[in-house]
């Protein structure tokens, strides 16, 4: 979907750089990247440096950067380009989906997507550059970036440590630091989703999307929340912040 948009806009001096946030690295991202067959840079971020450097707290998110390396829009929700045929995913799901996935899909369908406004703005910026009203001045970019105090910065350090411990095979120690990161940075969905994804339930590509306790072993779940409970707590319509022009 993004690949098609990139091919169209590339001749106008536009490039797409995709970054897979995954502690499991290339092993976790490979199938998705190979299926997309990107012609643009497609990168792997095992420690979520995008969270530290750009304030990314959820996926999918985007940051717009101009020809001079200036950020003109800080991290914000990036809905997939509108599809002429109305299809939203290239992946087909099995018919006998476990009940949890049926519930997850029902909540996900309620998530706000400002697709038309976002993509009209993106095209305007690609056409008109600094003249576009959607390219924000530097002060506004800083002001609109995520709030971060010392306690959140500390949460980021715990997350990085957790990611490295997981990569080194020290899962129990990683869980301790993931939990600290969740406590200190409660607004980060990626910090939670990453940790939950490491507690696989079942087999195959859906195992990491379970994002919650195994119904056959619920006592083993090491985290406070899970995707379905946390989304229902805030209301799925509040999962993404409204897009601001």
């Amino acid at each position, binding site marked *: 979907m*993004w690949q098609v948009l990139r091919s169209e806009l590339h001749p106008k*001096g*536009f*490039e*797409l*750089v995709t*970054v*897979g946030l*995954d502690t499991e690295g290339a092993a976790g*991202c490979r*199938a*998705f990247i190979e299926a997309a067959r990107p012609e643009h*840079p*497609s*990168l*792997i971020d095992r420690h979520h440096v*995008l969270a*530290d*450097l*750009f304030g*990314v707290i959820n*996926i999918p*998110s985007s*940051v*717009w*950067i101009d*020809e001079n*390396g*200036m*950020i003109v829009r*800080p*991290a914000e929700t*990036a809905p997939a380009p509108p599809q002429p045929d109305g299809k939203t995913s290239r992946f087909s799901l099995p018919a006998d989906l476990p009940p949890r996935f049926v519930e997850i899909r029902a909540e996900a369908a309620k998530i706000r997507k400002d697709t038309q406004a976002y993509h009209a703005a993106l095209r305007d*910026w690609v056409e008109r550059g600094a003249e576009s009203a959607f390219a924000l*001045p*530097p002060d506004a*970019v*800083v*002001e609109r970036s*995520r*709030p*971060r*105090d*010392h306690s959140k*910065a500390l*949460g*980021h*350090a715990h997350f*990085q*440590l957790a990611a*490295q*411990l997981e990569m*080194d095979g*020290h899962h129990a*120690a990683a869980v301790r*630091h993931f939990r600290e990161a969740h406590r200190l940075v409660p607004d980060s969905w990626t910090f939670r*989703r990453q940790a939950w*994804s490491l507690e696989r339930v079942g087999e195959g*590509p859906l195992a*990491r999307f379970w994002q919650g306790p195994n119904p056959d072993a619920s006592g083993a779940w090491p985290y406070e929340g899970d995707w379905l409970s946390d989304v229902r707590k805030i209301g799925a319509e509040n999962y993404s912040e409204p897009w601001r022009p």
Partner: protein
Amino acid sequence: MLLRSPRVSKSEFEAGTGWQLKPEGACRGEVCIPLSQPPGESVDVARVAKDLGMPLVAEAEFGLWALGPASTGSRALATAQAPDLRLPDLSGKEFRLSSLRGQKVLLYAWAPY
């Protein structure tokens, strides 16, 4: 930024944190923060972390340290100037964001979970 030692080289520190260590202080874009000691080729991470308000968490059992982002302002970005992101692609080849200077870039974050 992950560390296996409490001292790192200046270039590792700069690549890992996005802050350039200059005689006038640690700088990102137009923002410079004075340092309590002039930077050398080897960086005492705990000292610079304190100057920049970066949290440093140790996991002594595993010989690991993690340096969190600077909390110099109240926002994730201290400046609108993009840091020079360096990340590998699927084959492990390092990509640098600054290689796309002259083009408009949409940096897109996704995850396989």
